[in-house]
């Protein structure tokens, strides 16, 4: 395995260079500024909460983070009127979720057993629900559930269900029949939720930019800060087009211009016109509060919002060189051709 240090170190060097230039520039300004107005000052009273600021004065989100959590996206029926669990309930729920997630549970001879793929050590879902013990990651609507689908949303969801239940991958004509994940293009369309493994991110900032490297599936989001408009609607990108700005200590990023040219390239079967607004706010040395709101009147009857933590990890984010090692695609297509020959 190769570790993606080169690229990140380059980004870090740029950060350091940018920061150094910025500090030099600010030094001359700050020499005349009252102490209380100096930007980037790190001095603080002993015992006071640490202000997480970059040397050039922006809120500091940099570091390596994980969004792994056992908390489900939607509130389960059993907690219909219970948005928050007690400590005892949370402990019991975590135990149950870990048991249910146990990939060592076998169902021999079934597709599901094949697809579960390998034993538990290969998975990395975490072992806790969110610290505030919510029963769903969705905080709006208040019932913790994805709002109703429009007619178009229902039709798209139904079409995807039919494709999935037809096991299209087992008789695929080409790689084009596979979703973006199998093709090593994207893990899924933004925004990213917690998944089975590699739920890791590295944030690097420079004056004017925030870069977010997603371990799986090796994408880097480069987000310009400021007021420049989005790309024209004719230009569509796998990660959409992101524009960010600071609202106090919160990084607010709006993403548009998604593309629907492959299965799974837009979040949860929404249209390419979906608008995503994400917010990152540093709430401690080891925690970022991450929230996103998705809006797509062609898919959902109203916008909805998720709140989930990004917790600091102590290790590095590694390269997930998906495409160059994707022997599975070749094998799946060979299997489909072998099945055709056998049927003749």
């Amino acid at each position, binding site marked *: *395995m190769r570790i993606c240090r080169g690229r990140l170190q380059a980004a870090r060097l740029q950060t350091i260079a940018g920061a150094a230039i910025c500090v030099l520039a600010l030094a001359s300004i700050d020499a005349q500024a009252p102490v209380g107005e100096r930007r980037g000052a790190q001095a603080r009273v002993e015992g006071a909460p640490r202000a997480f600021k970059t040397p050039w004065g922006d809120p500091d989100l940099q570091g390596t983070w*994980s969004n792994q*959590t056992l908390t489900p996206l939607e509130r389960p029926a059993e907690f219909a009127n219970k948005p928050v669990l007690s400590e005892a309930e949370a402990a019991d729920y975590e135990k149950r979720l*870990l*048991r249910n*997630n*146990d*990939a*060592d*549970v076998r*169902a021999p*001879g079934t*597709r*599901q*057993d*094949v*697809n*579960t*793929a*390998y*034993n538990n*050590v*290969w*998975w*990395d*879902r*975490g*072992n*806790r629900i*969110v*610290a505030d013990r919510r029963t769903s990651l969705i905080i709006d609507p208040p019932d913790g559930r994805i709002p109703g689908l429009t007619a178009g949303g229902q039709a798209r969801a139904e079409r995807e269900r039919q494709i999935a239940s037809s*096991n299209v*991958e*087992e008789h*695929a004509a080409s790689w084009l029949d*596979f979703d973006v*994940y*199998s093709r*090593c293009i994207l893990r899924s369309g933004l925004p990213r939720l917690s*998944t*089975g*493994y*590699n739920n890791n991110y590295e944030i690097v900032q420079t004056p004017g930019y925030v870069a977010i490297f997603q371990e*799986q599936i090796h994408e880097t989001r480069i987000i310009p800060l400021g007021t420049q408009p989005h790309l024209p609607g004719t230009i569509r990108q796998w990660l959409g087009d992101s524009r960010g700005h600071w609202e106090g200590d919160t990084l607010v990023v709006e993403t548009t211009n998604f593309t629907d040219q492959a299965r799974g390239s837009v979040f949860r079967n929404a249209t390419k016109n979906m608008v995503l607004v994400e917010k990152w706010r540093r709430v401690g040395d080891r925690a970022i509060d991450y929230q996103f709101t998705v809006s797509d009147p062609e898919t959902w009857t109203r916008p909805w919002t998720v709140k989930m*933590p990004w*917790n*600091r990890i102590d*290790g590095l984010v*590694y390269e997930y*060189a*998906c495409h160059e*090692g994707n*022997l*599975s*695609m070749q*094998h*799946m297509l*060979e*299997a489909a051709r*072998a099945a055709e020959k056998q049927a003749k």
Partner: protein
Amino acid sequence: MRSGIAALIGAVACSAIALPATAHHSFSAEFDANKPVKLQGTVTKVLWINPHTWIHILVMKPDGTTEPWEIEAGTPNTLFRLGFTRESLKNGTLINVDGYLARDGSHRANGRDLTLPDGRKLFMAGSGPAADK
């Protein structure tokens, strides 16, 4: 008896529902659920590549000849994070594979369960702890 059968069906249904999310791609498109396979062989090579690690083994056949097989396993990133390295599974190690045969009949299988001859799971470790507190 009836309730016993109902309980059994319930248990099967529950275990089916309880099976967690799948891997990077559809393993059932690559391996055949109707062809479970159990192999024992010595490791000759481990490809620490994403999206899936591949463990190459040499299987000793009853007639004394050997046969190379390739076993598909999970993402190396997770293993690396847990402290495993390229030295952790040395060439010559004898392992048991409980998986499913490739649909095209090639000598490939998925490593649904990988164990050492004494029954210990290969790559024993717990799930990474969440830092969510």
